[in-house]
C-alpha cells in the first residue's frame, strides 16, 4: 500500500518536481504512472524507495512513513520491495542466478533456499538454459527478465518498475509486461510502473496516474 498526502519532492530546496501530491495505491493494484519526459515520474518512483528526500508531506509505504525515516526502517521498506530499472541494474560480476538470489539473501534466506528459488524463477522467466551466465552474455530483453525475476524472488508486497521496457524490442517488451502482469495477478503483488507509453491491449485492470507541472492526477 502506498499513501501520499501533500507530498513535495525536489533535488534542491527551491525547485519542486512534485507539488502537493495526493494519491493512494491499494494492495494488489496495477498502476501506471505516465506523463511526458522530465515531469518527475522517475523522481516519484524513487521517493517510494527512499532514494530521494521527501521535503514535505507524508508518504507511507506498507505502513511506514518515509518522512524523517531512520536508516533501519528504510532498509525494511526496501527489503519488501522489488525494483525493476530501465537499465536492469544487474551486478555484472555475478551470474544471473546470483543476481536473482540477492534480495533473498538480504532478507535472510539461506544460500540453498535462495539458489533453489533462483533456479525456479529462471524456469519461470524461461531462461533456465542460461544458468551460470553473466549478465553481459545475455541480450537486453533477457537481462530485463532476470531483473523481473530478481524483483519477484522474495515475494515482495510491491514491485516498482521504472520504464522497464524502455530499452527493449516489442517482443521482449511483451514478455516483460506478461511477467509483471503475472506477478500482479498470480502472486497478488502491487505493481507500480513508470512509463511514458502505456501498452495497448494490456488485458488487465489497471489505474493510471499522470504528472503535469508537478501535479499528480488520476487519468480516467
Amino acid at each position, binding site marked *: 500500500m502506498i499513501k501520499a498526502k501533500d507530498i513535495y519532492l525536489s533535488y534542491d530546496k527551491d525547485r519542486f518536481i512534485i507539488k502537493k501530491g495526493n494519491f493512494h495505491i491499494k494492495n494488489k493494484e496495477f498502476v501506471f504512472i505516465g506523463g511526458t519526459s522530465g515531469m518527475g515520474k522517475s523522481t516519484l518512483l524513487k521517493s517510494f524507495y527512499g532514494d530521494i528526500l521527501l521535503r514535505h508531506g507524508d508518504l507511507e509505504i506498507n505502513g511506514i512513513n518515509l518522512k524523517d525515516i531512520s536508516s533501519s526502517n528504510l*532498509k*525494511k521498506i*526496501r527489503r519488501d520491495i522489488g525494483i525493476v530499472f530501465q537499465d536492469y541494474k*544487474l551486478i555484472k560480476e555475478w551470474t544471473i542466478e546470483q543476481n536473482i538470489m*540477492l*534480495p533473498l539473501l538480504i532478507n535472510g534466506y539461506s544460500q540453498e533456499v535462495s539458489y533453489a528459488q533462483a533456479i525456479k524463477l529462471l524456469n519461470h522467466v524461461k531462461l533456465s538454459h542460461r544458468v551460470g551466465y553473466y549478465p553481459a552474455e545475455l541480450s537486453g530483453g533477457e537481462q530485463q527478465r532476470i531483473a523481473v525475476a530478481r524483483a519477484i524472488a522474495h515475494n515482495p508486497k510491491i514491485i516498482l518498475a521504472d520504464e522497464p521496457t524502455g530499452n527493449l524490442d516489442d517482443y521482449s517488451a511483451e514478455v516483460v509486461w506478461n511477467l509483471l502482469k503475472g506477478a500482479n495477478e498470480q502472486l497478488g503483488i502491487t505493481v507500480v510502473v513508470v512509463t511514458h507509453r502505456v501498452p495497448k491491449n494490456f488485458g488487465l485492470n489497471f489505474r493510471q496516474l499522470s504528472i503535469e507541472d508537478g501535479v499528480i492526477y488520476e487519468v480516467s
Partner: protein
Amino acid sequence: MKFLKNLISFCIPLITMLFALTIFTIVSSAVDTYKEKIRSDYSIVIITKTPLVQDTIDVLGGIKVDKIVPMNREKILASFKNRLTQNSMKFLDQRLPYFYQVYLTEFPSTYQLEIILDELKNKPSIYQIETFSKNHNQIYSLLALSQKIVFILYIIIVLFAIFIISKQVKIWFYEHKERIAIMKLHGASVLYSAKPIILLTFFSSVLSSLVVVVFIVIFSENSSLIFSEELKDITTIHFNIFYESIKLLVVSLFISFISIFGVLTKLKIKPN
C-alpha cells in the same frame, strides 16, 4: 588476478607493520636483556654511622630492593694495620662507618634514581649515598633513546598502515560502488555490502601474520647471521612462536578492522 592484486595491496602495509612490531619486540627484548645484565651489576653504595637494619629498606623509588650487601669492613681495616698503632686501629674501628651495596630488582630510571636518593637522604642513619648517576645516566639514556626511537618508528608505521589500508578500502568501495548501490537499493546494510572486503581483510591479516611468523622462525634460528658476535648475548631471543603468532594475528586483525570500520562508519553516515 584481481583478488590477488587486492590481497597483495592489503598484505604489504600489514606485513610492513608486523615487521616493525617484530623489530620493536627484538629491540625491546635486547634492551631488557641488557638492562637486566647491568641491573645485576649495578648497586647504590650507602654509608651509615651505625649498622643498618636492612628490613627497613624494602622498596626504593617504587622498585623492590633485591638485596643489601655489607661491604667488607675488615678488609678496609686490614689495609691500615701495618701503618697504625693498636690504639689508633681501635679508634679507627670505632669511627669507621658502615658501607653497604644496595641491589635493586629493576634497573632504575633517572627519575626513579632521584626519588631513591631523596628516600635514602631521609633516613637518619645514612649520611653518604653514591648512586653513580653519571655512568647510570649515560647508559640508561642510550637504552631509553634506542627503545623510544624504535617505538616512535613503529607508531609511525602503524599510522601509515592504517592510512594505506583505509585508502585501499576506499578504492575497493569506489571500484564496487555500482554493486554496493544495487545492494543498498535492495535493503542491504553497509556491513552486508562490505562482506567481501571484510573477508579479504581477514584473509590478508592471516596471511601477513603467517609471513612474519615464518620470518621470526628463520630469524630466531639464524640471528647470528644478522647480528655480530659481540651482540650475541643480548640479541639471542627465545621467541614463543605460538604466543608471537597469536600476538601478530591479533594486532594485524585489529589494525585491519580499525581501518575498515573507520571507512564503513564514514560511509554509513552518508545519506542512503
